[in-house]
């Protein structure tokens, strides 16, 4: 009984831990012509280094507002940086008047909508929110 409780607790705890380890993936429009992206390519797109996709279109990476926990998780996962660092990064780029940070959207649903409707858009969502409208082009777990 005691052991069971332990187990349950443990499982629950793991589940919660696992949930905290947000399982994020990067997605793109299936017509975007992008099959897979390497981590570097994702970084390049999201951090303003690359603005074009392989197809030649101007890439439109989508970011989320800081209210969403996915954002912090995404950047932690991708470049191992926290949000203030990312902000400061963009602040510097914006100061020079060159780069501008990815467009910010309010929610994961909005990300899905924009990606599914826009060939150049790229976004990140939780794995469990994947559906047919988008194609997963980068899976950090792999």
């Amino acid at each position, binding site marked *: 009984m005691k052991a069971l409780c332990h187990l349950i607790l443990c499982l629950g705890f793991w589940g919660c831990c696992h949930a905290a380890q947000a399982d994020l993936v990067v997605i793109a429009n299936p017509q975007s012509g992008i099959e897979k992206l390497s981590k570097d390519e994702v970084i390049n797109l999201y951090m303003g280094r690359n603005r074009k996709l392989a197809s030649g279109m101007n890439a439109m990476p989508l970011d989320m507002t800081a209210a969403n926990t996915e954002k912090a998780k995404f950047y932690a996962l991708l470049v191992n940086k926290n949000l203030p660092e990312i902000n400061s990064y963009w602040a510097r780029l914006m*100061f020079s008047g060159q780069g501008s940070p990815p467009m910010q959207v309010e929610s994961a649903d909005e990300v899905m909508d924009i990606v599914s409707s826009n060939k150049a858009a790229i976004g990140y969502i939780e794995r469990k929110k994947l559906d047919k409208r988008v194609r997963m082009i980068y899976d950090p777990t792999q």
Partner: protein
Amino acid sequence: MLRLLRTSIVYRSAFIVLGIALLVGIFFALLSYHFSAQSEQEQARQRMQASLSTVENTASIACFVLDQNLAGELARGLLKNGDISRVQIISEGKVLAQADKKPVKGSDQSALAILPGISPSNQLVHEVYSPFNPKEKVCEIHLDPNIDFIREQSTAKARFIVYLLLLQALAMASAVVYVVLTMITRPIKNISDRLHTLAPESGDKLGLPDGNEKDEIGQLVRDVNTLVASLLKTLNEERTLRIQHAIGEKKFQTIFENAETGIFQLNFSGELLSYNPAFLRMFSLDDHGGKDIIANALTSLLEGQELRLHLMIDAAINEARIMSDDFYIQLASSSSKKWINLVISPAEDGILQGLVNDITERKSQEESANQLAVTDHLTGINNRLGFEKEISRLSREYANGNAQGFFLLMIDLDKFKQVNDSHGHTVGDQVLVHFSRLVSNTVRRSDFIARLGGDEFIILLKDLTYLEKAEEIAQKIITLASQPIVINETLCVQIGASIGISYTGPNEFDANDLLRQADAAMYEVKRSGKNAYRVVHLNSSKHQQANDSI
């Protein structure tokens, strides 16, 4: 300046100290320049590194997104650092951004700038990695160090050290000057000034300078005092010696000046070199007669006898003997004649010293003594001794073969014995005197008369070769002798003379023979009746006139 260096210890030591300090200063300045250049470069490097690490994040972002603006901003920012003269941000072979400082030409190209120690090729290359991937190099930042700046910095530091050292050198030199001046030069100057006014004769001594009693200067002063004292002692000894010497000289001088003996020096040719007043007096010379006259005085005084003088001089020099001889001289000044005794002894270097004494008086005494010895007291003519001397002199003369010939007249008075016996010795003596006067008046001055004793007389008719003349004289004597002799108013006596004559020619003769012959002839006359003469048969005679004649 050079003169000062030579004459002043202060200047010299200051100069040397300054020189050494400057050399050392230059050496240290170079050293410090070198080190400060090194360290300055190192510091510049560190500063650049620091600047780099400050902008590293931004740089990696700028390079990551190839943001030229940001990179340019960054480069300009970096360039604000004084150590950096040029910034290049190079991404994949392309220059993303570049910033240069305009090199300020001709700025501070100081002498130190040419020194080694700063290499311009000290470019700093910094690799910048992606902000998201520490393995991905996104660009390089090339930083050129600002050589001028670094140089200026190191130069400034070195200059500062130089200034410090210069100040130190000046301070040291001043200290040396002060020390030398107060501790060496001034005491020495004082000593020297004191020395100038020192009167060592009065026992004056150099005072020890205050504070230097125990050091080298004190030692120097003591040494100088000792030296002065010993010099003074030596001087005094010298002076005493000189005085003694002068006294000695004076003594000799006095002797020389006041001696009655003529003292002189001559050279081997008989010239006078020096003489004393007595010498002048003796020969009635004076100093004002001119040097040559005085120099040759002796030889001219001994005119005709110089040969003897020169023989004496030669003997004195060659045999190193003291020579002495008498001379009979005629003084130039007066008509008088003098006997002098000359003593010559060799001195040195061919110089002779001589003494001359006036022996006229002694000579005349001697002569009168001699005269007395050979004189018959009664008659004043020669006695037997006088005759013997004369005959021996003549025989020497004739032996030498410079003669003519002479007659010897042996006279014996007739009837003298009776006169003597009957009238007494006094009358006899008067008769003898009378006769000798008579004979003296008859013969020539150069002829010789002697009384051999009693009433026996001898006459030498010298340098006579004519028998007639001799006979004439003999006859005259006989005639005169037979004249009555007035003794006084009441007494008148008469005597006669028997004469034997012998003769010798101009060659050697035997005096005894001559005498004997004359004696024999005289006795013959006596025997044959007196008051006559007889001439000896002159067997040795080469004379044409010499023969018997009655």
